[in-house]
Every structure is written in structure tokens, then in C-alpha cells.
């Protein structure tokens, strides 16, 4: 448990350095949903987001190859996966950000929108787990 927290802190630090590189060198906010969404809806379709995605998918693939794939405990329930994917995709684009854009990059800048968004998605996530795990028992 204690080791989990230390690895969390270390991994978080690496994520922060990633965001700092993208900001200080490229002048862009490291938001996974913004980068991916710009490619999907055409509002940001160029080499920069593509290269970012290549690193984001490719380096973990390499790490998994070298050290073994980590346990992800992903659900096999297709209805759940599709509903969740649609909600995450549409919600993050409507709100203009997700955990990385609003959470990491927004809060660190003391952005009101980042803080409000983070309160609402963590609140909604907590209620969803409470409802679907403890009341309905489906996840």
C-alpha cells in the first residue's frame, strides 16, 4: 500500500514533467482528450498531436514488452464499455478537458474552470461507483 503511494507520487512526477515539456517547449497544454479530440473532429489535425499519441501509445507498449504488461483489470462487459466510452468521449469534449487537461494542467495554474471541472467529474465518478457497485452491484 505504502509502495503504491510512492509509485503514484513518482509516476505523477513523470506526468508533470511530461506536461512541463509540452508546455515549455511546444507551448501547448497536455490534455489527452483535447489532443485526441482535435484529431477526431478536425479542429487540431497536424503532426504534433499525432506524434504525441505515438509516444503515449508506443512507449507503454515498449515498457509492457520489456517488463510485462501490467494488470489493468478492465471489465469485459461490453455494454458497460460502450456506455462508458461514449460518456467519456463526449463529456470530455463538451467540458474541454479531462483528468490531464483540467486536473493536472488546470489546477496547477489555479484555473477556476479546471478546479470546477475536477470537482464535478470526481463527484460524478464517486456517485457512479457508489450507485453501480454498492446499490446495484454491477461493477
Amino acid at each position, binding site marked *: 500500500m505504502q509502495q503504491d503511494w510512492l509509485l*503514484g507520487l513518482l509516476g505523477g512526477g*513523470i506526468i508533470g514533467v511530461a506536461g512541463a515539456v509540452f508546455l515549455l517547449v511546444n507551448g501547448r497544454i497536455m490534455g489527452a482528450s483535447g489532443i485526441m479530440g482535435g484529431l477526431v473532429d478536425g479542429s487540431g489535425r497536424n503532426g504534433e498531436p499525432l506524434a504525441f499519441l505515438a*509516444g503515449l*501509445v508506443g512507449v507503454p*507498449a515498449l515498457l509492457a514488452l520489456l517488463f510485462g504488461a501490467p494488470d489493468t483489470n478492465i471489465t469485459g462487459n461490453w455494454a458497460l464499455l460502450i456506455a462508458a466510452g461514449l460518456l467519456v468521449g463526449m463529456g470530455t469534449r463538451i467540458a474541454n478537458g479531462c483528468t490531464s487537461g483540467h486536473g*493536472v494542467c488546470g489546477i496547477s495554474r489555479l484555473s477556476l474552470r479546471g478546479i470546477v471541472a475536477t470537482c464535478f467529474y470526481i463527484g460524478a465518478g464517486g456517485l457512479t461507483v457508489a450507485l453501480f457497485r454498492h446499490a446495484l452491484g454491477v461493477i
Partner: protein
Amino acid sequence: MRGLFAAIAGGLFGTGLMVSGMVDTAKVRGWLDIFGAWDPTLAFVMGGAILPMALAWAYTRGRSPRLGGSFPVPSEPTAGRDLIVGSVMFGAGWGLSGLCPGPALASATFNGLPGLVFLGAMTLGMWAAPPVKARLATPA
């Protein structure tokens, strides 16, 4: 050059998600499970990430990005309907699956078919979002 540093940033982001355990949906849902076996790891990840980012934001003052252009200006300090509705939708999907966009992409190659189904649905949701957002942005 822009592409190279974008790839480095993406690679570091993916590495951090792997090291921190945030590709594990059980840990993420554990953080959201305040009435069950609560797992505080995500708070440490957030804290660890916010610190270097806060220093980076402080460093931007009076400077320009290394590769030219300008730093993103702060958004208007207004939280509209789209921000709230979108974040609630996102949070619900996050709670159901334990996946948000970053980790879902980072684990694309080892999450099997379920991971790809999630990414497919997420892409579809992103593609369908602009008209819904436009409707929410107009005052009620």
C-alpha cells in the same frame, strides 16, 4: 522538432501512467469508491504531477515557448453549463469503467479487445460532441 518533443512528452506521459499504476482500472475505481475499499493512490499521482506543472506555469511568465509561438492564455474564469454537464458525463463514464482518455490510450496495446471497444466508443463520443456542446453553450 515540434513532433519530436510532442512524442517525448507523450512517451513521458505514458511512462508516468504506467509507473503510477493509473492504467489499472481497479486502482482508479478504488479512488472513486469512497464507500468501499478507498484507494488514495490517485491523489498522490495528482499531487506529484501538479507540482512540476505549477513550476512550469510560473516559469512561463514573461517568456515564450522554446519552439516559438506563445503560451496558452488563461481561459475566462467562468464555469458554464457545458463545463458542468460535460464533466458530469465524463465522471460517470470514468466511474463505470475506471478509464479516462490518457490511461485508455496508454494501455491500448495491452488492454485487449475490451480496451479497443472503449477507445472506439470514446472516439465516437468525441466525434459526436461538437453539436451537443454548441447547444449547451447557448444560454438556457
